């Protein structure tokens, strides 16, 4: 990455952010599916892990509120109370419908600058 940026710190940072967001987009629908599956199967451990994974990645690219909702789902999985998922899962589902588009726009913006 340093070679690509030619020592330009800002460029390197933008490049890293674009790469992180692209990776996130690539993995996003699979992670949402994992969460949905774990809820349907009432698998608390799987819910905890899948929510945790989505939370960490979301936080990394700055989706703080989305990450906070993932944290709530993770806590639900941890405390084995899968049945309490409804409210927060709905918020995550609604946000998920917009996230990919928002991130793609952000990537386009970063690539232009």
């Amino acid at each position: 990455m340093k070679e690509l940026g030619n020592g330009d710190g800002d460029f390197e940072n933008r490049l890293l952010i674009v790469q992180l967001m692209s990776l996130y987009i690539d993995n996003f629908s699979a992670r949402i599916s994992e969460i949905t599956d774990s809820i349907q199967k009432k698998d608390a451990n799987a819910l905890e892990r899948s929510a945790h994974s989505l939370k960490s990645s979301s936080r990394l690219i700055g989706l703080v509120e989305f990450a906070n909702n993932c944290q709530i789902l993770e806590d639900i999985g941890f405390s084995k109370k899968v049945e309490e998922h409804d409210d927060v899962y709905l918020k995550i589902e609604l946000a998920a419908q917009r996230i990919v588009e928002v991130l793609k726009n952000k990537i386009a913006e970063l690539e232009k600058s």
Partner: protein
Amino acid sequence: MSPHKILIVDDAAETRLFLKSLVISLGFASFEAKNGLEALKMLDEHKMDLILLDILMPNMDGYQLLEKINELRENRDFRVAFITGIRGTLDQEKLNILKPDEIIHKTVDVNVLKNKIKKLMSFDIKNKREGESLLQRKEDETDRNIPLPSFQGDSEFTATITNMPIVIDVKATKTSPTSFIFIGPVQFKTGINISFLSDEGSRQLNREGEIQTLVKKCVAFGDKFAVEVDLLPDT
């Protein structure tokens, strides 16, 4: 000289990419594994200096992986840090058994994270582990009712170092009729002479007046130094 090697173990591709970028920016070589099995394979093929290990992973979590690593190697010759996004308290019982060198939370500031990695890669941490091993061996040899380094029981004494440019008071623990360990604020070279004044030390070691010793070993122990000394024969 080839750069030091850091293995990043995390099931999340973004985390691996981010940590890789950070590790490379610090001048280290980066290796990645997305699960425990890959990590074990990497460890078989490459000599690593540090492992950054996620805890919550599918199939084999970080605790299980570190347990495997500890089983495979008698004396770890690399450091291991858990890097975790777990919000609540970690499993303290497992941490006490597994003894990672550091636990870092993923929400930590990136500059703090860099400093922690640099510190883990520094000589001090390696010496700290040697210091802990040294004290653990001495604990095994002494009365088990006297834990080190909390310094309780009949083997403990305080002493004053008298032959240095400054007066240094230390807490010491007798480990044999002719040796003891003390924790002090400064580093001592192996082979140098240290003189102590200690009424209780003299009583325990059956000496009169100043206790003359030679430094046998000195290793970093946190922000202090663990020093093992042998008594010189009475003149």
